[in-house]
């Protein structure tokens, strides 16, 4: 039965060859070539695209993307951990209500959520109007890096909270009692027992925030007003407006590699990977 069952996977192998492996190979090939992409005969091997990346202009953009993603991830972690902790300690009936209402925003469309901040932060937006009424000078938050960070934190905070909450809720109550039994007060129990046990959740959360944050182009476009270009915007431009697919591919490959390196880094820190359970 086993032998027959595994045949079920073979069509999928063909599928992933066509739709996952080949596309990535194409991008790789384009990154290492120059010429007209619509006419394969004009393609020649070239490192021009990669050299272009090393222009200070583009390196700045790379740096800015990572910087903003780090800041957002850090904020999500420091703001989100207490949330996970509070919810995990809530009384049973409050717990499900809290979780429910915490999850409502992420079920709303991602663009709507980002757009919502435009309404608040823009020069004519809610905050500034309010400030005007009170007589205070307006804040030029948007467009700008701060607005982008706010947008990132807003969108990705639940993805930091959920994995941490999942791990917290799995900690055996007896283990906490054991720590107290052995002389640790509440603070020490948190530092020496709870925190270390939630590290897998923290790493999950960091991964689920950092990755989309560093590669976004929507948030930076809408809240950065097109002036705060991140690597995502750069790539998007190459494939739409600029039509330099080779450069775009090179940038994509570099983005991919940098993310794979960060994730390898992360999974080294986390000795027990569960694969399936860490997504929710």
């Amino acid at each position: 039965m086993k032998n027959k069952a595994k045949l079920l996977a073979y069509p999928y192998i063909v599928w992933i060859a066509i739709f996952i492996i080949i596309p990535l190979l194409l991008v790789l090939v384009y990154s290492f070539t120059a010429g007209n992409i619509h006419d394969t005969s004009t393609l020649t091997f070239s490192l021009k695209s990669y050299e272009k990346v090393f222009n200070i202009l583009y390196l700045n953009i790379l740096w800015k993307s990572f910087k903003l993603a780090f800041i957002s991830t850090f904020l999500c972690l420091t703001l989100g951990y207490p949330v996970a902790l509070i919810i995990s300690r809530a009384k049973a009936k409050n717990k499900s209500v809290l979780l429910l209402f915490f999850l409502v925003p992420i079920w709303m469309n991602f663009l709507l959520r980002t757009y919502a901040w435009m309404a608040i932060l823009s020069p004519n937006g809610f905050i500034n109007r309010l400030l005007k009424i009170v007589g205070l000078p307006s804040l030029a938050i948007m467009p700008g890096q701060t607005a982008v960070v706010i947008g990132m934190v807003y969108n990705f905070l639940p993805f930091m909270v959920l994995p941490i909450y999942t791990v917290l809720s799995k900690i055996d109550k007896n283990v906490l009692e054991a720590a107290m039994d052995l002389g640790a007060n509440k603070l020490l129990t948190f530092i020496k027992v709870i925190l270390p046990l939630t590290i897998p959740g923290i790493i999950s959360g960091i991964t689920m925030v950092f990755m989309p944050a560093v590669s976004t182009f929507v948030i930076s476009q809408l809240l950065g007003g097109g002036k705060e270009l991140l690597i995502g915007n750069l790539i998007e431009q190459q494939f739409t407006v600029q039509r330099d697919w080779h450069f775009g591919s090179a940038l994509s490959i570099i983005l991919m590699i940098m993310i794979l390196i960060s994730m390898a880094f992360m999974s080294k820190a986390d000795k027990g990977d569960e694969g399936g359970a860490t997504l929710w």
Partner: protein
Amino acid sequence: MSKKLIELKNITKSYNDMVAVDHINISIRENEFITFLGPSGCGKTTTLRMIGGFEDPDEGDILFDDIRINNVPPYKRNINTVFQRYALFTHMNVYENIAFGLRIKKTPSNEVDKRVKRMLKLVDLEGFEKRHVDSLSGGQQQRVAIARALVNEPKVLLLDEPLGALDLKLRKEMQIELIDMQKNVGITFIYVTHDQEEALTMSDTVVVMNKGIIQQIGTPVDIYNEPKNKFVADFIGESNIIEGIMHEDFLVEFSGKKFKCVDKGFSKNEKVDIVVRPEDIDITTPEDGLLEGVVTSVVFKGVHYEMLVESKNYEYMIQSTDMQREGSQVGLSFSPEDIHVMKG
């Protein structure tokens, strides 16, 4: 007579509308191995947790060394606990688990090392320092939990059904080890179990509980031989419990006959419950027996045969190596010392 270490005065605890522990009073002495025994839900674990500080009593006082400790948190009590499912710290190895309490108290490293190594020797886990707790068997995890608690040299060790998850043979070995440990270390062990055999094997004192109330306190021998009421008689060992009447001191009637017995102090013709242990009944010929009956069931149990004999509307259980066939007529015989009369 060693001094009183812990006193529970009028302790009561309820959950929602259910009374888990109902006004219990008990003193626990230094160096005592005392076991709270009873079925699930009798309140024994709740009592233990209150002593440990994980639950607060609704009413009553808990005294430790004559000081009221109701409001003292667990980390300030000189008591340590071995939890039912060990509750080991999975992110630390064996050494760090055991050292945890010492590190909290900021014990110097060389002292920590000395004491942890001594503990590992005591629980027979030398060489396991660096092992991860997940890689250990149930019995080994058990011993780490014990070491982790004992290394802090508490005055009292609380054990919440610690052997429940082990297989039979290992459980029996651990029982003996725990008894030895208690004697060596010389501190009070407060043990909770639902296994009456375990309680009888290990304890100096047994506290039988049911529905939140203490049924009887005594040594294992007392509890077994002189159960105070039907519940204790039924819970401890196998019993034949028959209703009867106590005519006068040393004379009781049941199963249609009067028997000489060794109990006194009941009112004339008081309704009583009589206990006769299966192993105390001998099988004789129908003519020689005090009672006559028919064998209705014979089961081989290895160490003896367990037989049911019906006599005068009661099915007596007999444990004997003297096998009888089902359906045969037999006589039952026992001596006056084997008849135990309890209040009905």
